[in-house]
């Protein structure tokens, strides 16, 4: 006689009872679009590379990042990081310092001398990229990855475009710039400097299968300002260019900069570094309406740059500048007040925007120009077959990051066009909004503050202003990522199921066991990153 009948049972026998039949809703794992990725003009999978970084896998993190952007060390310095502006964590404590982690990875890669590898077989196609700025380099990189042979023609003596001739060295050290450019040339991309292209159409006839115009906007906009003959006036673009070439102009002890953009601030800060003890920025509207980025403004103020908001220059003479006070009307436009003041100024720098040098396309039929920029279709192709354009030369926000995005898009479009196809964008997943997160599971962690050189020291040389993160703080910063809308292997779903209906196969690899899942929805509610949806059972 065995065990007593019925009252005594063999363990675990309830597995025979498939409670999955109770379910009216089933859980499914989803991947949503994190706001950082959504906001990145270069289309980086930020949440993705941070995930690798969190585990300390810096190389895979860097390779993940450079799938989209070949210049992390550069962008980690000069990008205005819209990703951080969009970051969900801002609602919890402070945004994740994505930009600084990107810079850490970029610098780390340089120190480790990690290189890109081209897996695609040679396509036999030759492509000409005109201009070696961010969009040109980005396009060249992505085209090279696809096996195409890329030649870049650069009018200046050195590659980099505005990154070299517009952005002062204290924001972007040249060795970093050179390192990331040479990594691209190491892929087989040829850069021909001092070779200005006079006519883009000739290049097509020359036997290039496609041409990408990445010529940027290098002409300082001139505005008419009444001035005496002896007045010393120059524009910011040339001033920065000359400085970058090592032949800075003589500015005197008092400098007035006219304009409110980032370039204006770069010019003013550069002027200080060139020996001016007083640099005044004159701008017709107020601080709130200043186009320059908050960060830049703060750094400028830290360095003792003087701001004169709500002012226009009405007369420039030797050593003197007359400014008129302005006031904003209800639409926010500045209106004259008739009140005048004079400032002492040895020189006046105009930073009123840049224009595109359109000479090399003027007589190509089909290519239309409007509002001073080259018009392109959604695939960045001009009216001329095979002639594409991007960066500052086409409509859109004029930032390096945006330019890198253009480079990538152009490369994809060109690649598709070469195969007689049209590039199709992958559908965008739904947004990973903050309200989908279960923030209980994230512990509060203060954002690392980047160490800064003290302002005085900064003002007297071209050393880099903003310091990078060491490995530990970078890791710290990376781990503050909430992994919005994407699983980060926290095992919550595996743990919180009252029916053991989640199978865990290993890190980040889960599956719902629908034989037993009753569809209670706890896993979805408790998922920290909102990566589980409940969907009605199909009856």
């Amino acid at each position, binding site marked *: 006689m065995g065990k007593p009948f019925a009252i005594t049972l063999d363990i675990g026998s309830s597995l025979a009872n498939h409670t999955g039949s109770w379910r009216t809703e089933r859980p499914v794992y989803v991947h949503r679009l994190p706001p950082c990725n959504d906001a990145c003009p270069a289309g980086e999978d930020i949440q993705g590379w941070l995930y690798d970084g969190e585990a300390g896998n810096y190389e895979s993190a860097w390779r993940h990042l450079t799938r989209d952007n070949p210049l992390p060390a550069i962008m980690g310095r000069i990008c205005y990081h819209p990703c951080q502006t969009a970051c969900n964590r801002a609602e919890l404590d402070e945004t994740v310092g994505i930009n600084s982690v990107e810079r850490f990875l970029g610098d780390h890669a340089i120190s480790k001398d990690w290189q890109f590898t081209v897996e695609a077989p040679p396509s036999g196609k030759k492509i000409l990229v005109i201009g070696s700025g961010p969009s040109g380099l980005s396009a060249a990189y992505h085209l090279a990855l696809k096996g195409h042979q890329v030649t870049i023609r650069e009018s200046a003596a050195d590659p980099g475009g505005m990154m070299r001739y517009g952005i002062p060295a204290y924001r972007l050290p040249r060795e970093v710039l050179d390192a990331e450019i040479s990594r691209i040339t190491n892929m087989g991309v040829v850069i021909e400097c001092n070779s200005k292209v006079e006519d883009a159409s000739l290049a097509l006839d020359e036997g290039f299968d496609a041409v990408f115009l990445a010529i940027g906007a290098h002409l300082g906009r001139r505005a008419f300002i009444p001035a005496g003959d002896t007045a010393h006036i120059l524009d910011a673009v040339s001033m920065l260019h000359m400085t970058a070439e090592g032949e800075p102009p003589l500015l005197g002890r008092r400098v007035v900069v006219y304009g409110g953009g980032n370039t204006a601030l770069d010019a003013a800060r550069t002027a200080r570094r060139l020996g001016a003890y007083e640099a005044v920025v004159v701008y017709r509207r107020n601080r709130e309406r200043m186009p320059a980025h908050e960060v830049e403004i703060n750094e400028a103020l830290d360095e003792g740059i003087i701001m004169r908001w709500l002012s226009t220059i009405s007369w420039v003479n030797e050593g003197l500048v007359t400014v008129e006070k302005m006031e904003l009307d209800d639409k926010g436009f500045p209106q004259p007040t008739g009140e005048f003041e004079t400032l002492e100024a040895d020189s006046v720098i105009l930073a009123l925007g840049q224009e595109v040098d359109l000479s090399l396309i003027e007589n190509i039929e089909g290519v239309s120009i409007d509002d001073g920029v080259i018009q392109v279709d959604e695939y960045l192709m001009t009216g001329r077959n095979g002639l594409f354009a991007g960066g500052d030369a086409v409509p859109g926000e004029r930032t390096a990051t945006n330019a890198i995005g253009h480079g990538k898009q152009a490369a994809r479009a060109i690649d598709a066009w070469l195969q007689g196809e049209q590039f199709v964008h992958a559908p965008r997943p739904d947004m990973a909004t903050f309200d989908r997160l279960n923030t209980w599971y994230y512990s509060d962690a203060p954002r690392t503050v980047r160490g800064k050189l003290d302002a005085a020291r900064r003002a007297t040389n071209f050393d880099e202003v903003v310091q990078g993160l060491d490995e530990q703080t970078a890791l*710290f910063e990376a781990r503050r990522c909430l992994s919005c809308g994407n699983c980060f292997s926290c095992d919550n779903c595996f743990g919180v199921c009252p029916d053991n209906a989640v199978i865990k196969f290993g890190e980040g690899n889960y599956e719902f066991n629908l034989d037993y899942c009753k569809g209670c929805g706890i896993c979805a509610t408790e998922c920290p990153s909102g990566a589980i949806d409940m969907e009605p059972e199909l009856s």
Partner: protein
Amino acid sequence: MSTPLKFYQVGSFAVGNRLIDEADLSVQSSTSRSNSLTSGHRACQGCGEALGARYAIDAAMAATDGKLVAVNATGCLEVFSTPYPETSWRLPWIHSLFGNASAVATGVAAALKAQGKSDIRVVAQGGDGGTVDIGFGPLSGMFERNDDVLYICYDNEAYMNTGVQRSGATPPGARTNTSHAVGEHPGASFTQGKNLPLIAMAHGIPYVATATVADLHDLEAKVKKAMGMRGARYLHILVPCPLGWGSRSEETIKLARLATESGLFPVFEAEYGEITETKKIRRRVRVEEYLKPQKRFAHLFGANGHSEMLSAIQAIADKNVAKFNLWDSEEADTNHG
């Protein structure tokens, strides 16, 4: 890589964490957890007791290297886990009666001692009815004799198995089928209630602790600690019941969390009658936030609700916060009006 920043990506509140050492991982995050209460049981969707039981018994199994015997009081847990011909348990388990789990466990422990098998440990488990009401006498005896048993009470604050009737652990104002939400004083009465953790402490037993299904790491740590001790130990776990509380099945853990964050369910540890540790409230909330999602408290809200009862309940929470020193940072006060 051993940096002190390990837990920042996600705090130690989630079940697992890919960034920490195997050794520091929770039992529930391990694919080799014992699943003492396995799939196929007949608990309601989102059952807090099923979850709490697996959390606790798996932890005890891990702590005793699988040398564990469980005694179960009559109640939901027993009924949904062992209806003939199937059982969901995967360890030696016995059910006797509603009120005698502690005494049966005493017998098991005595027999093991007599047989020189002291390496095999005993847990007794029951709901709040079987613990604070009908099983109270034997439990007190077990405490008084300091029998080598860990008694775990899964508190869902009413007799759910019999269809939601008031128990000695039913909170003031709560609607049950024997404390209807009608009349001048709807719901369960505002009496002093029966706080078994404190009563257990009064016995001076080696270990008493409270926990909830909302903080797995805390719960597992307490079970592990308890299994590291000998003598009578008591663990009181709050397990929300979607059926009896009238809450959404997916909010089981959320409600347990709000119960502690509101101060209505203090989480603490005591040894030999003295409180040794209290879990601080991280994000304090008003009791309304906890009560509102539960139909059993619906009559307190709305046009003809009972604001006076709400403030009375808030007063209870505030008293707990003060008494157990649950909350010490004013800044952390986000939702507390």
